[in-house]
């Protein structure tokens, strides 16, 4: 009997040891010793190459003989073609081909050239993005000038320092002149001081027809001469109300010489996979708790960072824990990290360009804007903004749209002079007695919401006068938007 009990106990103990061994072997590891799961970034779009991160804000073609300037802007077909050609030339630079030059040497080089094409980088281009071997120059290019000569290109790079070099043209380039524009887009450079006749503007709101404004022959002033351009009213009998507007960026403000044609456009909010977007920020979706707000927005947070998706599609992300007193991130690293993060957090989008970069204490602020047919899309937080430092993205906002179609026929913008008068009249009313300093004028698309939830963008003049918020004037009525 005892032997039977012993056998039974032994069998039970053997089975129990098997069960316990199984539990130990296959059971969950202790939490403290748990292995951190590995995550891989899932890009919405392929990460962009270095040379795609920064593109010129304007491409200016200058022809000495005809005194013509043609300006091509982002989103225009000719801009895209010219930048492709220009980039292929810049990529052929080597350390041997470049030599440092002084301001005087640059002036001498540019003095006699019959034509040149300038690539203006409002966001400086680290030259190493194009030619890695030039990293030792540590040059952030603000303007690259390509001057086609008979058998070679003369290239001038302007940044903190200036460099010049020559590279030989290949046979195609010698025969085809691809670097030169194939269409025209004539512009003039605004003089240092504009005198506007504000009679009939703003106060009665019924904007008068285009006032004739006589420009002096020295419309394109050179040097530091303060060439005043008197702009007087036509013979309507109205009393003249002259107002002077100083131009801050001398020689840098271009306005179209010919009529600008545009049409209103209908847009659609970009369609981003919401779950993938949340996953991009939180990796593990189960860690992000969901808060449905009263305004229809959905907020995700893990206590450290928050992602808010508004009903109209605007995406806003903040990670205040990553804020630092000062950043150690370099400019070029910020550009690379920013471009990579944009690929992860929603992806690159057709027609978006890096428009501005600002260094703040806590990191770099990067702004991307959408461009259509040479005009940036402005208003209602359109575009994307990101603040980044060595720890990651602190702030991100994304509000991008797909362009569906143009509405109606293209019509001409009201002349830039009228837009300036209207803006100056507003400025004068807001700051009587102050002298206005014009910071910028450009044609844009201004975002507005049409009926039934559709989104519309209206062509407008954007005028920026120092001390006053940027003003957007309707392209047809010049009423503020």
């Amino acid at each position, binding site marked *: 009997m005892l032997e039977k009990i*012993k*056998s039974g106990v032994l069998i039970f103990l053997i089975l129990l*040891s098997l069960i*316990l061994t199984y539990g130990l072997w296959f059971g969950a590891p*202790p939490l403290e*010793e748990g292995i951190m799961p590995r995550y891989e970034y899932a890009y919405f779009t392929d990460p962009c190459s270095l040379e795609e991160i920064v593109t010129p804000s304007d491409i200016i073609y200058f022809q000495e003989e005809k005194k013509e300037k043609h300006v091509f802007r982002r989103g225009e077909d000719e801009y895209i073609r010219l930048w492709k050609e220009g980039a292929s030339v810049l990529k052929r630079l080597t350390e041997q081909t470049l030599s440092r030059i002084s301001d005087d040497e640059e002036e001498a080089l540019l003095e006699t050239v019959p034509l040149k094409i300038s690539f203006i980088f409002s966001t400086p281009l680290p030259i190493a993005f194009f030619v890695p071997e030039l990293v030792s120059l540590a040059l952030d290019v603000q303007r690259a000038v390509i001057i086609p000569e008979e058998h070679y290109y003369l290239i001038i790079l302007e940044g903190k320092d200036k460099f010049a070099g020559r590279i030989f043209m290949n046979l195609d380039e010698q025969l085809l002149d691809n670097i030169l524009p194939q269409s025209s887009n004539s512009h003039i450079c605004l003089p240092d001081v504009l005198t506007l006749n504000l009679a009939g503007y703003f106060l009665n709101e019924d904007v008068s027809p285009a006032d004739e404004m006589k420009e002096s022959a020295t419309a394109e002033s050179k040097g530091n001469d303060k060439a005043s351009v008197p702009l007087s009213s036509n013979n309507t009998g109205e009393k003249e109300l002259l107002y002077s507007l100083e131009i801050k960026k001398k020689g840098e403000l271009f306005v179209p010489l010919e009529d600008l044609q545009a049409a209103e456009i209908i847009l659609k909010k970009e369609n981003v996979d919401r779950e993938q977007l949340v996953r991009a920020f939180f990796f593990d979706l189960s860690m992000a708790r969901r808060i449905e707000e009263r305004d229809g927005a959905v907020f995700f947070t893990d206590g450290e960072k928050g992602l808010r998706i508004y009903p109209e599609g605007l995406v806003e992300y903040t990670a205040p824990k990553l804020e630092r007193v000062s950043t150690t991130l370099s400019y070029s690293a910020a550009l690379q990290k920013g471009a990579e993060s944009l690929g992860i957090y929603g992806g690159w989008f057709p027609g978006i360009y890096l428009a501005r970069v600002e260094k703040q204490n806590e990191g770099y602020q990067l702004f991307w804007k959408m461009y259509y047919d040479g005009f940036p899309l402005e208003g209602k937080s359109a575009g994307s903004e990101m603040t980044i430092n060595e720890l990651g993205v602190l702030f991100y906002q994304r509000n991008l749209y797909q362009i569906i179609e143009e509405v109606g026929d293209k019509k001409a913008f009201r002349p830039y002079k009228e837009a300036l008068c209207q803006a100056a009249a507003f400025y004068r009313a807001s700051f009587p007695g102050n002298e206005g300093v014009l910071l910028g004028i450009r044609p844009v698309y201004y975002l507005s919401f049409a009926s039934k939830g559709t989104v519309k963008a209206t062509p407008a003049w954007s005028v920026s006068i120092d001390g006053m918020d940027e003003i957007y004037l309707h392209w047809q009525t010049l009423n503020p938007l």
Partner: protein
Amino acid sequence: MKKMNFSRAKTVLICTFLILNIFLFFQLRQNRGYGGFASFGQKEELTRLEIELQNAGLTLETDLPKSLAPVAYMIVEPWIYNPQELIFSLWSVLEGPEEPLPLITMFVSRNDEKEGEKEELSSYSFGKHELVVNRKGTAVLRFAFPEEDAKEKNTEAFDQEARQFIGSLPFLKNFVPDFTRPLEKGTEIVFRQEYENYPLYAGYVYVSVFKKKPEIIQFYCLDVLGFAEQKREVIPSSTALLRFLENYERNRQEKSIVEFSLGYYSHEYDAERWEIPPVWRIRLNNGEIYFINAFTGNPEI
């Protein structure tokens, strides 16, 4: 050749397997966080905890809870109430059901600056009492208490009375007494909401007793819809304590941790619906309360 003694062999095997099973059993318990003894790694952790506590000027006056089963987010909505009905309930309890409810005067919503944001408040006066509610759902009841009653009572009596009062309000039936903490000029008796035996620290009732008489009751209640589907392991209490100590700013005063418990907590959101994470709540003897997210280990501020 000796004859094999099977009986002895069985006894040896039984002893061997018994020892093996005891070892395996404790090892398994240890891995699941129920260990009564510390392995090498845990010894280091315990030593680190002791050092960190010492550096923070804190002492641990409570046991650290052992690991618990996986849990999920709790889904809640703000408690939507009709102030008139609320006032009727309060009046019945405060003045007795026989006493007719006086005219309720509603003040036009006024804006008060709170944490830099404008807050919309609605104020209702009924008799000597006033109920102030805001958009998020927080309500404050200021009520008059007969002065002569106060003189005869001590704090314990008020504590008991507060419990009875909260217990008699039907809309606060899910609230249980939590703790009492000193105020600058009085005492605060705190109640917390509960759902399926889980403390919901986000829902609360604060009964403030000044000059030996309760004057203000502040409450915030949530409608619990249930739990999210996905369950996750919570971080061990020791890890949560370490994360708390990493973020704790020491001051001169020596303090002690008097409570360490698991529950649910979140801000008061002006939202339609939200998920609340499980948290480790750490309460100090001076009334300070800290929450550590039991999934992430991050402080919930």
